[in-house]
């Protein structure tokens, strides 16, 4: 009985530590997005801003899948830190993206954080 309890306890610890290391995702399809509850406070403002601006042209689902899979879901291109910066620059230069350099810098840092978390 003690062994079982110990195993269960270990299992719970293992699962909870794994969950803590990663960012949760909520919703389906076009409504899919990172779970704001699992975003650290220092990124909350950036996340909120990103959730507003990115959806001007595409869903957040695209961003979530890119982070999860390491591949841009539409093009199949790699989605790593180098690509994140390139996407950031692309969005900065995109007419009417309505994103300034400071915002892009924040988005890139946030996405890099997400990639790191996902790799854990």
């Amino acid at each position, binding site marked *: 009985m003690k062994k079982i309890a110990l195993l269960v306890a270990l299992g719970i610890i293992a699962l909870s530590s794994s969950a803590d290391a990663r960012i949760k995702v909520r919703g389906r399809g076009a409504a899919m997005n990172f779970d704001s509850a699992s975003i650290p406070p220092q990124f909350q403002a950036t996340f909120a801003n990103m959730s507003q601006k990115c959806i001007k042209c595409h869903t957040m689902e695209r961003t*979530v899948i890119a982070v999860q899979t390491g591949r841009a879901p539409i093009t199949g291109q790699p989605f790593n830190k180098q690509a994140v910066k390139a996407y950031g*620059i*692309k969005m900065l230069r995109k*007419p009417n993206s309505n994103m300034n350099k400071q915002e892009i810098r924040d988005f890139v840092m946030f996405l890099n954080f997400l990639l790191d978390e996902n790799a854990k």
Partner: protein
Amino acid sequence: MLQAKDIDLFNLIQEEYRDMIKINYIVAVSLLGLVCILSLPETSHAIPAFSRAHKVECTTCHTIYPELNEYGEAFLKNSYVYFSHDKKKDASASAPKAAKPAAKKVVTDAGTEVKGDGDSAKLAALKAGALSGSTSSESQPAATEPEAVEQNHDAKPTTEKAEGILLSGIPEQLPISFTGSINYGYDTSQVNEVDFAARSIKMHAGGNFREKFGFFATYVAYSEQPPTGTYNTSTTASNNKTDLNEFLLSWRHVLDSPVNLRIGRMQPKMGLWKTNNKLSATNNYLPYSYTVGKSSLFKIEQPQDTLELNSIVANRLYVAGGIVNRKGQNTKEGYGHLSYKFGGADFLTNEPEIDLNKEESILDYLTLTVGAYGYYGKNGTSNSNDPKNTYYRVGSDAELMYKIYRLRLLGNYGNDDNATPTTLNSWTNVISKAGAVEGEVTLLTNLIAAGRFEYLQQESNSQARFANNYVRRYVSTLGYSPLQNVKFAVEYKYEILPSTINKVGVLGATIAF
């Protein structure tokens, strides 16, 4: 029997109906007076076949269809092969997308490394399961809710291919698309001032065969032309000019060199932009579209039977040159093009290096592309002793982009030493000078406004044989795209010719599917 109240009601309805007709008429005329879109067949490069093949949206390559953005230009230069920044994939250039997991070491089920000098890309694709399954992810999925994980799998691009299709290099989907245009024109100089007649439908095919060969074709299925000869109001809409507008094959990186070989009928690469790469659908750029006299139909944007070599050098320099064959003429004609891009994404779509930690600079957003070209040729009556017309064109273009603004400049100089070659012993030298400037503002991602001024000046050494020609043209365009494959455009052209002034409004709709 009708009652009095029924008659009153009838009159009331009749009045309202009359008012409605009046309002509709005013609205229709107003719109017609303003608008403008596709009328004559133009070479096209924007087709949903590319969207279907690469599973990307139209705006990946277009601002508002069919105008290209810089990524669309790169796709065009890359012979209809989707640009890749995947180094693993680039290592096996001819492998399909699904081959990416196998870009790692190729190992058999038994764990033995596969050796040999066969087609490594094909083998990689085979081993990756490209022939029988879907792409698998290389990275671990994030901790998601179960339903989200399920979504992810649904969203992954599937690249299932039958072995035969993969090995044959045949596109999985039939790479066919259609584009069509419907125009309502308003022109006070015509008998039929409000004209519903201009419309066309074209069939396109485009894609690549295992990234070794690119191809593109445009077949004009229907294009309504201006009426010729005597006609009356009973004349039905003409259906002529059905023709193969363009059909080219591009052999990419010939013998592993950086050079691409294009053969077939195409617009020789001269100016920076192809015919339809602009917001306006009805008015082509004058420096690209003018002709000299009645004997020569040559113009810069004319599709021709061509053999062309082109190459991207050091990511930002594009070089092209080729020869053109004319029917019934043994001597060939030649052309060359050179363009360079400063700032912005390069011709391989690599983003510029911008330090995000530095303050904003104008250079972060500035892109300048400059190009120059030349064409040398000879035309006249085949198999006759009539003197021929030897002519050349040289030109230069530039495009400046800054945030939501785009500025295009075009200049062209032409010399025809005998613009009336059928007239023996009477050489008619014509000098042509053409220029255009166009400014464009992206008001919204799907709403763009443009204004253009262009001029043409043609002067000869003999007014008796060639009357000097002066054209000034002002064109304003508003393009709106409610969906990415549907475009509405309103255009107004004010054109000053030597003997007349044209005022033409067009409202047009263009669709691609």
